[in-house]
């Protein structure tokens, strides 16, 4: 998919930064996302691609080193919206989320479009992305802690198996 901010009306955030906030939005808990997205005015947005559900192929490597294999398919919902900002500057926002939650994909797309607008960028990074990033990190840490409790260390088994 190619969606690109146009012209030189303002500094366009670099791709790596956009990748970061899109990753945060894609993983953000639904209720937090809804809270942040609910306040947005509808009239500045128009849909370029209405939310649609599709499948994507998941590929993986065992231990991140083995050959690539097809893990399976996952449902993905995507959406693209256009935002008309101050001075008529246009930005296209994309939303890709796992699952079939169409509203969530549209919220992500809207926030992505707004984040590309210079007049909203700083505010949204501070008020939306930072707390969501913290929430995502906290949930990951919690999951990691729960998994760590059942960790098995195979090092002691290796010599026995070898002998």
């Amino acid at each position, binding site marked *: 998919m*190619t969606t690109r901010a*146009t012209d030189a009306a303002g500094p366009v955030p670099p791709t790596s930064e956009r990748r970061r906030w899109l990753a945060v939005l894609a993983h953000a808990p639904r209720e937090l996302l809804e809270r942040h997205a609910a306040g947005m005015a509808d009239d500045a947005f128009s849909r370029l691609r209405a939310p*649609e559900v599709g499948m994507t192929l998941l590929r993986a490597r065992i231990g991140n080193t083995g050959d690539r294999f097809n893990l399976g398919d996952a449902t993905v919902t995507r959406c*693209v919206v256009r935002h008309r900002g101050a001075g008529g500057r246009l930005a296209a926002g994309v939303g890709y989320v796992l699952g079939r939650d169409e509203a969530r994909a549209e919220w992500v797309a809207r926030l992505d479009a707004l984040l590309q607008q210079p007049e909203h960028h700083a505010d949204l990074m501070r008020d939306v992305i930072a707390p969501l990033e913290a929430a995502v990190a906290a949930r990951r840490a919690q999951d990691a802690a729960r998994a760590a409790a059942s960790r098995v260390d195979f090092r002691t088994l290796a010599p026995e198996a070898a002998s």
Partner: protein
Amino acid sequence: MTDSPADYNFRAGFDDPVHGAQQTFRALLAAMSHPGRLHELPPAALAGLQPEDPDLAPPLPTAVSAVLLTLLDGQTPARLCGDYDSAAPWLRFHTGARSAAADEPATVVAAPCAEVDETLCEALALGSDEAPQDGATLVVAVDGLSDGDSGEGLVVELRGPGIESMQRLRVAGLPASFWAWRRELRPALPRGVDLVLAHGTRLAAIPRSTRVALGS
């Protein structure tokens, strides 16, 4: 904001891509089965292509947009002639279609009628006797399209499969030399070029099997 080609990234397509394309395909199928007969695109095909906000509207004429959104996908090399070239990003966004390379035969060629000249016609792929499906589909936005006896443009008389005796079609914007080229192409059947004429929200088709003569 002025209309720069880059803005075409921000134009809408079908409201509902599945139904829009299906309805347009039906209209195309009907048009191809009845050469020269006028077909109005159904509302489901037009939904989204005529938005209230003018700068969301597709960058190409309505019927041309509908036909291209329907026929193109990632495996269809397309060629957009003249001004239409600037709509390539928009088509790529909605269909995944890529522009044909300079030396590659394009499956679908779209052009405004002013761009249809000898060079364009000679460059069209005709397919081969073994693979006639490689022949190009030429989509032309004409200045007028009617079945009436009066009005602008040249009258063509069509005969052949799908036509009981003779079908008249009035087309504005295409020169007599184009129709002469098309007439000489007919004996090459099954090789040839399928023609889709579009004007506003209506279209007519002249498949390669149709014999064309200029009427009065």
